[in-house]
């Protein structure tokens, strides 16, 4: 008799093109891995397999943190928001396959294709939603809002090292983030150096994994 596989916690990461979604995952996974959490990554890409291929190289081939077949690329037919919100069928099917293949995983990370500020994840697909923006467009975000910025569980503001060069005032961004998110959490990070990424990992462990211990110690390494 067939038994349904265990539901693995799912983290959705969305944000505009070039905001640092892939880099955030590349920095997060080693931190989670060191703590014993085993992850799988689904990477939705708008036009190429580049993000999935890069993560395979960095997280599997070079650092051997996870097996290559645990990084899965999905083409979105040019509709990144549709693939994670209006019709998440293909992502859900891949999640089902992963849950059947390895029910001992601690976390499935679903990266959205680069999209606009209205990006949100279907609650059927992601249990926890991180929206990432960067400072390079100036400090008008997060003030201008948008569903992604306002509704996500955690707002991440990346590339803070560039603020000086683009005239973005981080104190304004902090003030506006507090206001527009009604005190829901946000974090400033620099995914290039890893500054602040530990705090993102803590949010995930506390708020998505509820401080549960890893199901099993990393067996791949």
């Amino acid at each position, binding site marked *: 008799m067939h038994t349904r596989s265990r539901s693995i916690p799912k983290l959705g990461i969305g944000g505009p093109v070039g905001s640092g979604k892939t880099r955030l995952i590349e920095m997060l996974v080693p931190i989670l891995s060191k703590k014993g959490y085993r992850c799988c990554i689904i990477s939705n890409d708008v036009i190429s397999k580049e993000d999935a*291929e890069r993560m395979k190289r960095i997280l599997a081939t070079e650092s051997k943190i996870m097996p290559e077949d645990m990084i899965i690329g*999905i*083409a979105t037919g040019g509709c990144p928001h549709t693939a994670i919100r209006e019709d998440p*069928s293909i992502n859900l*099917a891949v999640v089902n396959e992963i849950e059947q293949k390895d029910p001992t995983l601690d976390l499935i990370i679903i990266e959205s294709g680069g999209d606009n500020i209205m990006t949100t994840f279907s609650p059927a697909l992601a249990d926890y939603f991180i929206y990432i923006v960067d400072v390079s467009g100036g400090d008008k975000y997060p003030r201008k809002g948008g569903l992604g910025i306002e509704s996500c569980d955690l707002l991440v503001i990346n590339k803070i090292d560039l603020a000086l060069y683009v005239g973005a005032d981080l104190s304004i961004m902090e003030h506006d983030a507090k206001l527009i998110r009604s005190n829901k959490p946000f974090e400033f990070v620099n995914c290039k150096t890893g500054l602040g990424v530990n705090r993102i990992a803590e949010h995930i462990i506390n708020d998505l994994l509820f401080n549960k211990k890893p199901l099993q110690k990393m067996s791949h390494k």
Partner: protein
Amino acid sequence: MNTNEFHLMQLADSFFPSGMFGMSGGLESFVKHGKIKTERDILQFIQQQIRFQLAPCDCIVLNEAMNAAQDDDIARIVDIDNRFFSMKLIKEIRNASIRSGPQMMNCVIYMTSNKENKFTRKYQGKIESKQSAGTYPVCLGVSANCLHISKQSAVRMMLYSYSVSVIGAALRLGIIQHLNGQWILTQLEDDISTLIKDIPRKSLNDMWQLTPFTDILQMDHEHDDSRMFIT
């Protein structure tokens, strides 16, 4: 409008969650290789795919799946499903079919009562236990039967949905405009209406498919580094 017609519209609507928006049915590869450039090329491509792939193969499977579902014959459903799966030469076509089919069926199960979807859930169990592949035309047949949609309407709907997904892909690839898409659909109406008349007379032993050029380009597409669509 009766309930069956309403459900038919639901399933045929591109708003219905089946993942079809992510597929171009091979069109992206044809465009990349410069083989398709105009609305007439797209019309011809869809016509050929319907005549040499969907009508002689997918539509027969759909019709036979509906017959088996009407007879409550789960063993026959499993046989049809696995035979169809074994005929799909392209890995990504096979994967797309077994990913979108069960997801579409999940939605139909969610929409209907336990009494209505008893057979659909039985088939779902066969897919989950890996006894049956869960291909799109079989899932559609079982779902359409659950919603009391007629066989002819279901076959017409599958051909319509396929055509819309290719035309949608063409729009997003930027080779046609919105008005061209509707012109193409209108031209297809006669072809589809004529072809579906023969389907009820066909059995699984009559199945065939012959689209070698599309197959080769789709195999090429699987390894393409830069692409928008799953297939």
